[in-house]
């Protein structure tokens, strides 16, 4: 599944991203998820043929249609071979009749349905997070091994293993692509949304400093969520809320890091770099998300992200704190608990926030010490330095270490002056 670089045109990689998963998904309807590799091989072959053919004869008038036709023919050829094999070599076995009368259709609705079934098949909580994200990237986003390895800052071999195990788990858990049934879709939608959210976070909080990769992961997550909103069965309030959340967050992607890839604190971000069109899209989906009675955690997180896109007004932080209060009641997470304290400090001051924070006792989490370092920096500089030092010991991120070292240096300077 190599992304062809041989074609001089920029078109092919673009088409690959756009069509690879659609084509694999449609073909998988005929092969079943058990034989997804066959579908993937046929689609990869199709792109290979395109790169050779187009380099000589030029790009056809309708490149997508060209790809679909070739993939169709290749699939028919494949089934012919199977037929030959089955009839001549294994005459005892009956040929699958469906395969004999194969009719592959790349009709718009079929693509839509196939893609949706594929998303539901791959986003499977049977697999651990890292496996899920690798599988999503490979099967649903058409990423190459090298690209996935890059995103995870690890080597190809490790990713290959994850993918193999992940695929085996998918087969074992019988997550076959069946017809999309409303009940099943609804009961599994939360798992799918969670996987998409994980993919997004992998990009947003990525270990890699490569801004391009991060952006691409975030955009892929948005693309998958968009597919869900285009189908009646999955266009639910929580889907729109997740989409709104991802749009708001992505609007700050450019301003979150400097050219060295170091994180820039929210207060110090250049708001001119925020992507206004993404903020508008976030607003649109957030309004759409309010078409129901159910408030999901994505609603709350999207609303928090919305407030972060607005200028600091009188009651901004009260609203944010209120949302964090609701969020922590829905689902406990240490990061939510710590973010809530940050909002609390903006409303009730650092002193009260310190006593709230110290109740949490999240001594093993670097962000806990980072937060306390921040809260203590006015009150008690020695304590602030102590906490920042602990945070440095705990964090695995190099850029974060550097940011914290700078913080300590500034505190020391301030201390010497006073």
């Amino acid at each position, binding site marked *: 599944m190599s992304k062809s670089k041989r074609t001089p045109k920029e078109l092919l990689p673009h088409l690959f991203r756009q069509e690879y998963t659609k084509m694999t998904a449609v073909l998988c309807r005929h092969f079943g998820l058990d034989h997804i590799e066959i579908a993937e091989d046929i689609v990869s072959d199709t792109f290979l043929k395109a790169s050779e053919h187009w380099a000589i004869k030029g790009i056809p008038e309708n490149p997508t249609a060209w790809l679909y036709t070739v993939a169709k023919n290749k699939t028919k050829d494949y089934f012919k071979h199977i037929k030959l094999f089955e009839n001549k070599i294994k005459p005892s076995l009956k040929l699958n009749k469906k395969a004999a009368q194969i009719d592959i259709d790349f009709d718009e609705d079929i693509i839509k349905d196939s893609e949706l079934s594929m998303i539901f098949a791959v986003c499977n909580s049977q697999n651990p997070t890292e496996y899920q994200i690798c599988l999503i990237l490979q099967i649903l986003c058409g990423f190459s091994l090298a690209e996935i390895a890059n995103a995870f800052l690890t080597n190809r071999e490790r990713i290959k293993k994850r993918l193999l195990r992940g695929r085996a788990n998918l087969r074992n858990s019988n997550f076959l692509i069946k017809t999309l049934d409303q009940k099943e879709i609804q009961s599994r939608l939360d798992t799918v949304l969670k996987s998409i959210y994980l993919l997004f976070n992998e990009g947003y909080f990525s270990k890699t400093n490569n801004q391009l990769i991060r952006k691409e992961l975030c955009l892929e997550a948005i693309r998958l969520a968009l597919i869900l909103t285009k189908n009646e069965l999955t266009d639910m309030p929580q889907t729109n809320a997740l989409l709104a959340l991802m749009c708001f967050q992505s609007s700050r992607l450019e301003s979150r890091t400097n050219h060295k890839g170091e994180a820039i604190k929210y207060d110090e971000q250049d708001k001119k770099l925020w992507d206004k069109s993404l903020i508008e899209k976030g607003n649109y989906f957030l309004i759409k998300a309010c078409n129901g009675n159910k408030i999901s955690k994505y609603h709350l997180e999207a609303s928090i992200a919305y407030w972060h896109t607005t200028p600091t007004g009188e009651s901004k932080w009260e609203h944010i704190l209120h949302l964090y209060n609701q969020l922590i009641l829905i689902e*406990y997470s240490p990061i939510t608990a710590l973010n809530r304290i940050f909002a609390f400090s903006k409303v009730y001051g650092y002193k009260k926030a310190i006593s709230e924070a110290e*109740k949490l006792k999240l001594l093993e989490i670097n962000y806990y010490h980072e937060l306390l370092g921040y809260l203590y920096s006015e009150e008690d500089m020695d304590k602030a330095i102590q906490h920042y030092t602990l945070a440095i010991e705990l964090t695995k991120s190099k850029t974060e270490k550097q940011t914290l070292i700078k913080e300590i240096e500034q505190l020391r300077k301030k201390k010497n002056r006073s």
Partner: protein
Amino acid sequence: MKEYALIFRINDIEDFKPSPEQIQERMNWLAGIAAQNKLLDKGNTLLPGPASAKTVKPNNIITDGPYTEIKEFIVGYVIVKAEDIDDAIEMAKANPIFKIGGNIEVREVLKRD
């Protein structure tokens, strides 16, 4: 970790309708416990009005509310996880109910299986 019910009582029915500030304070308190991952059940409010509260007594005697004989009445409860009763007491101490003269009863929960 043990489980404790915190049972809230107030003295004056007028205080039952909280102001927005009081709601905010209560919410902060509840979320503060959830933030320590110690909230087991956010509980419920128990309505004290005459139409919502009756006491059933022997010999088919039904009285309005709990407040004919005792002055204070229960308005709600939450269930928390705590190391011991002192830990649960510490959580209760931070509740804003004391500002309006209310009190909190802390009771260890023994589970019926």
